[in-house]
């Protein structure tokens, strides 16, 4: 019974994560699909955790250790390379010296003043 509940809890997490994934990813515009792909690619490098956990097991043979070191190296390449390359790409989308934003910040100031007036009235 205990084990069954672990399984069902994890299944619930799995299903919910799937739905969240669909909702979040659907909001990403076409323009950013390449960085999205490399970013999510980096995220599945999380299998590294599996490699790290198994390296903690007792009585691993030489072959096990060799396989796990390769797995850990693979997972790390996946994570580090993936995030770095995504960062490089996204930086190019952002770093645009564009003198804008001076027009939008003007309208807000009077609202704050009125608010404090209303509170001080009592």
């Amino acid at each position: 019974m205990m084990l069954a509940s672990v399984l069902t809890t994890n299944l619930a997490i799995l299903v919910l994560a799937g739905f969240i994934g669909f909702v979040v990813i659907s909001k990403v515009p076409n323009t950013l699909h390449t960085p999205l792909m490399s970013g999510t690619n980096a995220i599945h490098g999380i299998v590294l955790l599996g490699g790290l956990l198994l390296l903690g097991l007792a009585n691993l043979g030489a072959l096990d250790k060799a396989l796990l070191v390769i797995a850990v190296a693979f997972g790390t390449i996946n994570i580090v390379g993936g995030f770095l390359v995504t960062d490089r790409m996204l930086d190019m989308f952002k770093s645009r010296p564009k003198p804008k934003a001076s027009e939008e910040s003007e309208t807000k100031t009077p609202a704050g003043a009125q608010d404090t007036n209303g509170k001080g009235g009592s």
Partner: protein
Amino acid sequence: MSAPVLATSFLQSESFIYVLYIIAFALFIQGLRGLSGPTTAVRGNRIAAVGMAIAVVATLLNPGESNWGLIVMGVGLGVAVGVSAARQVKMTAMPQMVALFNGVGGGAVALISWVEFRSHGSTYGSHPIEVGGFVVHVGGPPAYVAIFSVFAAIVGSISFWGSNIAFGKLQEILPGRPITLGRAQQLVNLLLLTLAVAAGVALVAGTHSELLFIGMLIVAALLGNAVVLPIGGADMPVVISLLNAFTGLSAAATGMALNNPALIVAGMIVGASGSILTNLMAVAMNRSIPAIVAGGFGGGGAVQGASGAGAHDGTVRSTSAADAAIQLAYASRVVVVPGYGMAVAQAQHAVRELTKELEDRGVEVSYAIHPVAGRMPGHMNVLLAEADVPYDQLKEMDDANPEFARTDVSLVIGANDVTNPAAKNTPSSPIYGMPILEVADSRSVIVIKRSMNPGFAGIENELYFDPKTSMLFGDAKSAVSEITAELSAL
């Protein structure tokens, strides 16, 4: 006895570690939310990276953790390779890079499953028995651990080999054209899949044979090769995206087997993301995913025969850089339509120079980008962003199409099938129904292209025979630079 204890106690009992995992996956989700716009995206990616760091630290906190030397070695190796690869890769080579990173991820999954089998496989197949209304598992980990682990092994192996083949094709180590066994291909694929699944079932049921496990990995590896080798270069983005989804799902399966929530959530989100992108691309190419996986499309002679209706005897008008420059200089609105040719020629900076020159002359310039232009969705956007093209000049297909009618010159640079009017006008064409950039609606069209060779789909482009189209033959980069030179001399 030791297996369930290992699988559950040291992963699960530590509430603190579990909480760290929850924080980690929350950061992944928050990070991906940031990718909804270019201004928040950089931070989003970094948030996700922080989440990853937390997940790794949480794992290392496990009391049972040992073999630190090996961990440092593996991580050090991975960091060295990952950093140098990510720093050095050219933006044009991004699809290969993603394929390669995806492949190592899949490889890691397969290796981890293998070691997991070596450690616990001898206890697979213990059967649940009912005692007084409760189900009790005797002898080994519950069946689902074995099922997910074996699933992860198969999918990880497919993903590793498939991604490597995709990398080889994109890097042009392997020929880009489909390599197929012909009619037997699908039968062979089906056979391999059946074999892999059968081996997996036998293992789960309690065949404690490591040889069988290795055999299963090999069969899955062959399947990965057999599925990707027959796929042509044009379909590669779909394949990479599909394999990305596969690796994600295999990571989620590993998480289910190891009872690790961070792995489950991260893997599943990647699986969802990959599925969405794959589907989007398949729609944009007017192909079904099974048809793409079945292969054969993308540059074969067979397709050419099917498009016989497009056998034109019309004439093609070729132009010179000087004439093109004049045509562009007197336009009031120019739309640039980039395609893979631009990426191959590394022409994005030259294109930016040209459009700057045009903007200085008061010409309104924008870029129309087809969802599958290039070798990856959004690939063109990355290249143009690299060349400092403002984000708001990049128009997606649905925004760009209504604008072509009031466009004086459409400048098509290394794009082909995505501009082919046959997709709208010729029901017999293999690409009929595919959404295209309606370049033919503009007042005139200049196409920069290496030669009259058909594109990856192997279909002739009616656009080139349109009287208002002129062709400028040559390498995209040098042709664009020549136009810019002529333009500044005007």
